[in-house]
């Protein structure tokens, strides 16, 4: 197993090594000290353990279109846009995440054990974002596809301008965004959340007690009568 210290190596050198790891192998990145762009663009199925806090875009542009990819664990907090445009594999954040967690991610799983800040899951395109704690305002903004699971409370404007992504919230919702609406849970939802709880270990979430938020689909087509709806 490779041990790569950010005290000794540049981000470029760390990533260069990580990209060349053979499938099935693993590496530990030590002393990340909030560096940006760690473990970016990794396509292979490898295990990467980042021992500490990471900056922007950690694990971004990772994985492949078939849903496979690296398994990345970040021991601490992460900056903006963890796992942005992720295609596959998984990223687990032990701490909390800053803004735009899982931004435009198309596949794979991003699991945050702490809280996530504003616009978590913005522009989501098929991935799963699970946050054990609370999420900030405008979570799920313009999310197109995929699932956002929130264990705690959601801030204002949840699901604003949603397309076909689905949001489940275990706690309270400060307010829904434009064209977002809550919908009755059906058996498939409960099963889906149950599987996510199992996959993430966020077992404080009761799959039968979450609130489901989806698009009301009222703004899918232009009309001047929507003036003021946003």
């Amino acid at each position, binding site marked *: 197993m490779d041990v790569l210290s950010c005290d000794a190596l540049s*981000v470029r050198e760390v990533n260069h090594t990580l990209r060349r790891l053979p499938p099935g192998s693993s590496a530990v990145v030590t002393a990340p000290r909030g560096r940006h762009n760690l473990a970016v663009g990794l396509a292979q199925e490898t295990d990467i353990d980042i021992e500490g806090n990471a900056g922007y*875009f950690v694990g971004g542009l990772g994985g492949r*279109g078939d849903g496979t990819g690296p398994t990345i664990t970040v021991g601490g907090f992460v900056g*903006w846009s963890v796992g942005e445009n992720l*295609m596959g594999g998984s990223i687990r954040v032990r701490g909390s995440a800053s803004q735009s967690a899982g931004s*435009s991610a198309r596949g794979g799983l991003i699991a945050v054990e702490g809280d996530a800040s504003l616009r978590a899951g913005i522009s989501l*395109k098929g991935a799963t974002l699970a946050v054990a704690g609370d999420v900030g305002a405008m979570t799920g903004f313009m999310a*197109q596809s995929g699932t956002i699971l929130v264990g705690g409370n959601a801030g204002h404007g949840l699901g604003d301008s949603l397309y076909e992504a689905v949001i489940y919230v275990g706690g309270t919702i400060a307010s829904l965004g434009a064209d977002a609406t809550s919908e009755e849970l059906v058996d498939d939802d409960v099963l889906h959340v149950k599987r996510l709880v199992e996959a993430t270990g966020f077992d404080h979430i009761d799959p039968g007690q979450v609130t489901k938020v989806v698009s009301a689909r009222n703004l899918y087509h*232009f009309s001047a009568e929507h003036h003021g709806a946003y």
Partner: protein
Amino acid sequence: MVSEEPVVGQPLPVGTAPEVVNASFPPEAMARIHDMAESGIYPIRGLGARRKVPDFDDLVFLTASISRYPLEGYRERCGTRTLLGGRHGARPLELDIPITIAGMSFGALSASAKDALGRAATAVGTSTTTGDGGMTPEERKASSLLVYQVLPSRYGFDPADLRQADAVEIVVGQGAKPGGGGMLLGQKVNDRVAQMRTLPPGIDQRSASRHPDWVGPDDLRIKIEELREATEWRVPIYVKVGATRVAYDVKLAVAAGADVVVVDGMQGGTAATQDVFIEHTGIPTLPAVRLAARALAEVGMAEQVQLVVSGGIRSGADVAKALALGADAVSIGVAALLALGCNRSSARAPDGRQVDVSAGYRALGTSPGRCAHCHTGQCPVGITTQDPGLESRLDPDLGAKAVANYLRAITMEVTALARACGKSDVHHLEPEDLAALTVEAAAMAQLPLAGTDWIPGLQTQE
């Protein structure tokens, strides 16, 4: 004091004074109000600004005579090779001509149109650019040099495609709609387009206007680094902005690490956006070039960072003037579509015959020469459509040949002007080769008004 103005013509008989048109509310302004009152929606359309703005036609070349001598046209060599993006050790794009094809999406354009543009660019040694809908395997195959756009929407963005790109262009804004997102109306969102963009088929798609994962210049620096990491620092990173606060944007893009800055003036086209954006946002390409070139010079980066300019480029004269004002290359979109047959009254039928398609224009309420109905998906010549029947009117082989012809012809116009200015390379053209015909153009391009040494605004600029 009593005026003694001479009377022109005969006085009209009493009671026959003509009703003059209200300058604030001419018939077209009235009609627009009537339309909005009727439909309850603002006008949406394609292509670029229709109104007349100061442009490259307002400049002329001061070609060689006694003080400078010209090169022989067709005999003495005039270089057109153009390198873009070597600043950070990436493999620069090596173009045979200083003219590239701007980003236009599959979705906005038909697959045949994308294919034809790609093959034309490959034939003449230049690049094409993806668009707001991802990279199709067809366009990767057709284009030997392909620039992959990173747009706010991130529709279909795939790291695997990123790794196949020859350059990456982060699109912050676009001349037709700086500050606004793109649109693709439901009639063009067919199953393949919807799937590529992860959207339900048939919806009116409104692209984001702001990137989801970063905001501001400091974030942009990190975003550029991310893209470099994901491409192992192999390919150049462009940053494209719509021309608004050009000097600031260019300097911020350079500070963030851009290898190439693309500045798109207000005449730049789009497949669909609000008319109010197209006509009322951004500044013309003419002042944008000079502002961008000066910004690069001010930060000492004119040699390291290349400037690509777009928005309303039509001819070799436009290209040559843009280069003289400081651009390293230009990018064309609308002109390339016109070369493909946009706004022509005839198109080729599947059996090869030229057929009159003016009925298609009439059905859209327009006519050849005026059409900007790209947003409807009912393009009579098969370019901006996803309808298989209409798309069959564009033969990709013939289209590729037509666009290559056009690119070669305007490149020859550029070299003809450069030789006449005594330049053995088109990149040697300089502001001193130009004069302005109008006070406005002189002020905007910071060139002397022809016949004078007056550059309006020069004092305040210094």
